């Protein structure tokens, strides 16, 4: 048994942090920029998440949306989904929040080095992926090429529009996005259709490719099928993020299990072959 502990703190105690900036991403999503009151760095790796605590509303897991290479703050992109996230949307700069973490297994950065990297996000999935994109942006030499593909439901739902433009014009990336449907009234002149269309259109050296996929549950199967068609059939070629209800973030509460795996500690980032055969994973 692990030995006597320090009584003044606990793994369940959140640390205070202060909201620096809030910006609207869409009518449902906001970006929060925060810093730890302790003054230290959060120390996240791309793909990790934090448990955001609001007294009275418990906690919710939220992925860190910026790369650790951007120092002095951390960002959370949050969709208004219920009570806690709804309360977050009411917060103003200067307000305080509690944070535990960062938790979880991050994107396997080492496995991407010198690869043709596909970063594929659907909907809210761009928030966690953004941390990886920024990371790639800040270390351009590490990868052979980086392709960003992003799908949203409608032009209105596109997250991080400024970033998208910035990435599209960046030398480091190729970046395309697409929306399921565009209402006639909108002034959107980009592509429409499913994200799988963008994947089909890629030309890459499949032996040397590695894809990272983050999106809502219904997106995974079709995207994986499309990636396979592209030739990403080997091991350690597709990485994805699985989200489950999470109460603790540290492998204790049991809400996030997929068979014998705990999404919060064994994931949220998995290699496809680690989870593909598990019932209910995809």
């Amino acid at each position, binding site marked *: *048994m*692990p*030995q*006597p*502990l320090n*009584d*003044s*703190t*606990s*793994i*369940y*105690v*959140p640390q*205070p942090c202060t909201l620096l900036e809030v910006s609207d991403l869409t009518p449902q999503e906001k970006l929060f920029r925060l810093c730890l009151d302790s003054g230290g760095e959060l120390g996240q790796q791309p793909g990790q998440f934090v448990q955001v*605590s609001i*007294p*009275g*509303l*418990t*906690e919710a897991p939220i992925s860190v949306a910026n790369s650790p290479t951007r120092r002095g703050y951390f960002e959370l992109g949050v969709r208004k*989904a*219920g009570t806690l*996230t709804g309360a977050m949307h009411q917060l103003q700069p200067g307000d*305080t929040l*509690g944070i535990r973490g960062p938790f979880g297994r991050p994107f396997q950065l080492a496995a991407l080095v010198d690869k043709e990297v596909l970063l594929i996000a659907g909907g809210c999935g761009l928030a966690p992926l953004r941390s990886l994109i920024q990371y790639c942006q800040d270390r351009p030499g590490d990868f052979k090429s980086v392709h960003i593909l992003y799908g949203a439901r409608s032009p209105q739902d596109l997250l991080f529009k400024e970033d998208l433009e910035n990435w599209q014009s960046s030398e480091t990336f190729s970046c395309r996005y697409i929306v399921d449907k565009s209402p006639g009234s909108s002034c959107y002149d980009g592509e429409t259709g499913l994200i799988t269309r963008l994947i089909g259109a890629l030309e890459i050296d499949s032996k040397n490719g590695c894809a990272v996929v983050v999106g*809502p*549950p219904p997106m995974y199967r079709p995207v994986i099928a499309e990636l396979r068609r592209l030739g990403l059939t080997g091991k350690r070629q597709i990485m994805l993020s699985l*989200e*489950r*209800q999470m*109460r*603790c973030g*540290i*492998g*204790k*509460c*049991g*809400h996030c*299990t*997929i*068979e*014998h*795996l705990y999404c919060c500690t064994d994931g949220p980032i998995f290699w496809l072959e680690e989870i593909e055969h598990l019932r*209910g994973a995809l």
Partner: protein
Amino acid sequence: MLKRLVERDIYDLLGRIADSYRLRVPGLLDDGTRTLLPWDGQQISLFGEPPQRKPTAYFFPQTDPLLKIDPRGQATPAAVAEKPFALFGLDSIDLAALAFTDRFFSNPPPDDHYLRRRNGALLIGLTGYAGPSRGFLPLVKGNCDLELIACGEYWLARAGCKSADHWLAHYPPGDQEQLAVLQRESAQWNHRAAVDVQQAMELLRQDMVPDSFWEEIASRCILCSGCNLACPTCTCFCVQDRQTATGTVRSRVWDSCQLDAFMREASGHNPLGTEALRTRRRIYHKLVADPERWGEPGCVLCGRCDRACPTGIGMFAVAKEIASRFAISSPD
């Protein structure tokens, strides 16, 4: 160190332990339910059914305050009582459950809140002829600090670790021969449900149990959550906040994977969205997922879920059903 005690010595021993621990001993509640209770120096129920309430509840209670957040947002961990628990009256099954739960909560990152109660606690086994109607309870293999073994007229006592030796120091030595006899008996002792559960485990691992089976079993479930709440190796919890003028108390509360909202996400997506999936999970998790992760099943065969289940679909009942329906009968 093996010692010989008579019943009076047990009271003396426990009396000394009670000075430095919060001692819990088997007793009968008003309606005859046998459970572990604070000791008032009076009669102890030395023989009988295993205590109804799971022993892990002492370290992981149903409602368990984790921390307090003051109105300025400052959080402090909940204090736990200074005196550690001493639990007397644990059989080998309950000790196995505690060992399982200990390992679960110690797995990195360790759950300091559990460990704060668990560290320094004294676990005292009660085995030998101490079962219902003085039936046999197999001896403990490690896992406890002290073990008292009922041998009929007298008791054998041994310490599970060096640091516990001193409790027994002044009693006369016990009969090693007698211990050996009991150890042989323990080795031969078979749990009534072990065969079924073992077989169910195999069949599940080989994916021999069709979904229709889970649908059928699940249709009997009235969603009481008792199977999970009674189980000593069930550790799932949800988190509740209660806000008052003086701050917020955040607690963890026993949860149950039989409930629809256990995994339901804010979007409505629910990986365990049907009764059948949840019922499968309850059994599969213990018999297949836990061995895969921890190297041993999460079911220690205590039988509590079968007792708590109002419709007769606890672990033993389901395992029996699986074993009898899906086992490929041997050629002879």
